[in-house]
């Protein structure tokens, strides 16, 4: 009775005994099995089978005899030699391969560095696993990372589960003075005394646990200490803040690492802020961040719940269940990558997505370069078909050929790697500028980077080499050696697909670049609803400067080049203060805040905002002034529609931010924050005492001169205070910096992608041109014109580029549409962008192949045919 053995038996025997013995032993076991099946029946035959298989287990310990090919070491040397010769012999192809792979690898290595840098952020804090930032879930995607000032003290007093708490807030525009050294400092941080116990900033001098216990104490970074104190130890010395507070230096820390989320030059405590009168003690206004350290054995969720229930709820209606769903301890380790942080000018989505985008781009370029290698290797396989046939005839098996070609690909990749490392070292500077990074050259020696290098090399060698290896190793020696076999043609379809993919990706990158640039142009040129050009602002940091404002204003305005001067609490580009507004008949479901800014007279005029209903603030109406809990409001159309949908909000009573009064004017909607968010409600109150910026509108004459004049007046009035000004439109530029960077990076990448793809196309074109020399010659002999022949040769490639659009367009539409959706105000891109990208790709492709094609087309047919 015939009975097949189960396939796992064969597999088992092959693995136990090695491929040489396997067949014989399989046969023996099968024969026994069949024999016993007839004599003893299936069950007992099976038992015997298992017994015999068990006996074979001893072969585990025997050395396996695989095949008869024992000269592999010699062959490897030979492969290496052949590999080198192949590179040297075909200089054009080798250049295309090496340059393409090198550029692709350099690109991906740079991106790898960038990603690594991004991921290493904040990891130097020793207790990072126990640190959390306190955030609030508002029931939508965004969490709210800003907290009220009173949260931290309450947590410290009432929640024993939480070890340490510190608030955090940055300050800029402070003045530090030590004797004759007086400077503006823009990187200050205000924290609580636990801060340095929670976060590991290296203390060079001083005691970190007590450094900020005294309100009049400060911690400086090393370079700041040097700036004011020179080489002497500053510990115990005093330094003057804002010309009035004398602070004792209690600690010196090493400069804050670049890859830290917290960036500051010196720190002082919230107690000092209270003394300075800049501390808003309230539960309703959120103006700082709160960080906690919780032991790993404490239940995070339960503690968060406890904090929310026992402390936060009921303190103010902004913490009601309708507006705050939950309190979240967001792990500090991943905060930077995952959170949506509130930055005053709108929610700014953080880095994880950018990391993905960039990594994806790097892989894309690498893939395009790999395709070149695959295409050229298979296209030129005809040249090597005989070699492969010969090898097979003298005994090479598929595995040998495969390892030969994988090895060749590895060899070329290694050369490309050298080129790539060279490129990386050159391009690091421009790359840092482009990506807004400061990756250093010595990071190239780090272990992580070396792992990346080896990883990328192996990946590229494998991806680029696997298809040629599989394809070439499958040649049949007989056909190849007989000469009937057109090796290059067989893989033509596959090559065409690859070219389509290459160009598709390149066209997609071009589309992306065009769309980003168009959107950026749109953002820059969009009418914001007010005039931000030639508008500068000067910080009024100190009381003296605020007091001098009125006389400054009068003196400034005497210059005809200065059109208007006003002051406000917040910069028009950064209106980050918001509170709940109240009015009669307010929809109880309406929870969104109203932004507000306290302004001085002439504010609207200076910004070029025209009142559409009602009137501007005026000195003729003393009741406008918001000094004593009451005053008038000027609101935007959006708020007006909210207050009285369909009706007129003029004269309605509004309660907002501590003031209460009638709406005296309505202005049209204007963009006071990033174009990524919809226009929000905003209200202006007239409050000339609260001002921290002077806004100056200049005529478009000689701006440089006017500013010098402004400065002279300032220094004349306030000789002790530096004059520091900024242009308002620069603020707006800054809001879109990450998008701008993405655009630049994408632009660079798309150029690179198209260059690499064109190189590949060039290689292919020259290959086909050579292949079809005889065909062309015959056509010409029979009377074809040069233009006809050129058309014939170009057509095949150009069709591929046209086909590439088929998938590049939907991809571009989808991904770029997605990106544009991150803007509330966006362009719509139509067929024009697509056509432009396609046209560009087509022209580049044509330019690439035309030279090779023409050379074939104009060549003398006799040259090609004389050997037939």
């Amino acid at each position, binding site marked *: 009775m015939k009975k097949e053995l189960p396939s796992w038996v064969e597999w088992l025997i092959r693995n136990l005994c090695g491929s040489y013995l396997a*067949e*014989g*032993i399989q*046969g*023996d076991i099968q*024969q026994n099995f069949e024999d016993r099946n007839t004599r003893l029946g299936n069950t007992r035959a099976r038992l015997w089978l298992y*017994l015999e298989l068990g*006996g*074979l287990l*001893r072969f585990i310990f025997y050395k396996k005899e695989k095949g008869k090919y024992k000269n592999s070491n010699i062959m490897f040397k030979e492969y290496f030699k052949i590999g080198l010769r192949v590179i040297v012999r075909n200089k054009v192809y080798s250049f295309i391969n090496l340059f393409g792979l090198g550029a692709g690898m350099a690109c991906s290595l740079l991106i790898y560095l960038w990603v690594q840098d991004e991921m290493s952020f904040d990891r130097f804090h020793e207790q990072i696993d126990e640190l959390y930032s306190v955030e609030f879930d508002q029931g939508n995607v965004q969490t709210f990372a800003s907290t009220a000032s009173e949260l931290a003290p309450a947590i410290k007093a009432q929640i024993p589960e939480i070890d340490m708490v510190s608030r955090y807030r940055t300050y800029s525009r402070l003045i530090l003075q030590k004797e004759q050294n007086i400077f503006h400092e823009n990187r200050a941080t205000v924290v609580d005394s636990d801060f340095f116990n929670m976060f590991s900033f290296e203390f060079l001098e001083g005691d970190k646990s007590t450094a900020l216990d005294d309100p009049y104490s400060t911690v400086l970074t090393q370079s700041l200490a040097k700036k004011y104190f020179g080489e002497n130890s500053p510990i115990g010395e005093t330094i003057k803040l804002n010309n009035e507070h004398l602070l004792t230096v209690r600690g010196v820390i090493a400069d804050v690492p670049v890859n830290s989320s917290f960036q500051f030059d010196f720190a002082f405590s919230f107690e000092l802020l209270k003394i300075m009168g800049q501390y808003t003690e309230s539960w309703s206004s959120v103006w700082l961040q709160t960080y906690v350290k919780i032991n790993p054995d404490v239940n995070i969720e339960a503690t968060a719940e406890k904090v929310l229930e026992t402390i936060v709820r009921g303190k103010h209606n902004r913490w009601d269940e309708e507006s705050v769903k939950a309190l979240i301890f967001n792990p500090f380790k991943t905060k930077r990558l995952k959170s949506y942080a509130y930055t005053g000018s709108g929610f700014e989505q953080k880095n994880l997505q950018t990391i993905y985008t960039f990594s994806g781009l790097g892989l894309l370029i690498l893939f395009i370069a790999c395709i070149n290698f695959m295409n050229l290797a298979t296209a030129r396989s005809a040249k090597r078909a005989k070699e492969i046939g010969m090898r097979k005839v003298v005994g090479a098996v598929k595995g040998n050929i495969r390892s030969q070609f994988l090895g060749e690909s590895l060899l070329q990749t290694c050369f490309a790697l050298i080129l790539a490392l060279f490129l990386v070292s050159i391009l690091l500077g421009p790359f840092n500028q482009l990506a807004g990074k400061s990756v250093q050259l010595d990071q190239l020696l780090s272990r992580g980077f070396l792992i990346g290098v080896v990883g990328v090399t192996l990946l590229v060698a494998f991806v680029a080499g696997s298809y040629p290896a599989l394809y070439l190793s499958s040649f049949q020696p007989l056909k190849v050696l007989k000469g009937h076999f057109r090796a290059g043609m067989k893989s033509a379809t596959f090559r065409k697909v690859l070219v389509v993919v290459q160009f598709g990706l390149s066209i997609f990158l071009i589309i992306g670049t065009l769309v980003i640039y168009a959107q950026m142009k749109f953002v820059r040129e969009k009418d914001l609803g007010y005039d931000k050009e030639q508008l500068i602002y000067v910080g009024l940091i100190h009381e003296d400067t605020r007091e001098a404002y009125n006389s400054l204003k009068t003196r400034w305005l005497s210059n005809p080049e200065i059109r208007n001067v006003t002051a406000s609490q917040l910069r028009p580009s950064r209106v980050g203060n918001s509170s709940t507004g109240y009015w009669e008949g307010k929809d109880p479901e309406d929870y969104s805040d109203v932004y507000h800014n306290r302004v001085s007279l002439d504010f609207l005029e200076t910004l070029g905002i025209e009142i559409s209903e009602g009137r501007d603030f005026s000195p003729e109406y003393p009741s406008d002034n918001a000094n004593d809990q009451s005053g008038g409001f000027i609101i935007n159309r959006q708020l007006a529609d909210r207050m009285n949908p369909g009706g007129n909000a003029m004269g309605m009573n509004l309660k907002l931010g501590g003031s209460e009064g009638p709406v005296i004017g309505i202005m049209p909607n204007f963009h006071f924050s990033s174009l990524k968010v919809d226009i929000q409600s905003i209200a202006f109150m007239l409050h000339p005492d609260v001002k921290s910026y002077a806004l100056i509108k200049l005529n478009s004459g000689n701006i440089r001169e006017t500013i010098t004049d402004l400065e002279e007046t300032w220094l004349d009035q306030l000789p002790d205070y530096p004059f520091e000004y900024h242009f308002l439109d620069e603020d707006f530029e800054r809001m879109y910096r990450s998008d701008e960077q993405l655009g630049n990076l994408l632009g660079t990448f798309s150029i690179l992608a198209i260059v690499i793809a064109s190189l590949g196309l060039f290689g292919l074109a020259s290959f086909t041109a050579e292949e079809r020399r005889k065909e062309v010659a015959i056509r010409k002999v029979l009377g074809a014109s040069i233009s006809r022949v050129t058309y014939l040769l170009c057509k095949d490639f150009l069709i591929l580029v046209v086909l590439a659009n088929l998938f590049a367009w939907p991809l571009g539409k989808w991904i770029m549409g997605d990106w544009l959706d991150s803007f509330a105000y966006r362009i719509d891109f139509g067929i024009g962008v697509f056509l432009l990208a396609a046209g560009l790709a087509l022209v580049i492709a044509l330019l690439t192949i035309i030279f090779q094609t023409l050379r074939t087309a104009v060549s003398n047919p006799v040259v090609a045919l004389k050997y037939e």
Partner: protein
Amino acid sequence: MKGDHLGEFEELVLLTIAVLFDDSYGIGIQHELKERCGRGVTISTVHAALYRLKKKGFVDSRYGEVTPERGGKRKLLFRVTKSGEAALKKSKEMRNGLWQAIPKLAFDN
């Protein structure tokens, strides 16, 4: 020297290969051992012995022709090599020498 020592079971297998001459493969050897020597061993034991013999250079192996039997698997055929033959002869001579050295009285009854 362990390398060319011929074990008792190995010697039997080697002799059987010589007996079977042109058709000595796993199962043939297994059956021959059972019939002539009464040694019932599993096929894996036979192959283990063959493996050791081959490593010592006493046998050579080759694959036979494809036949429809055994599920189309070729037989792995074995042949005694010159050094295998030498090892058998040496073993036989050693035994003969020992037999001749036995005093007649020893096996008296």
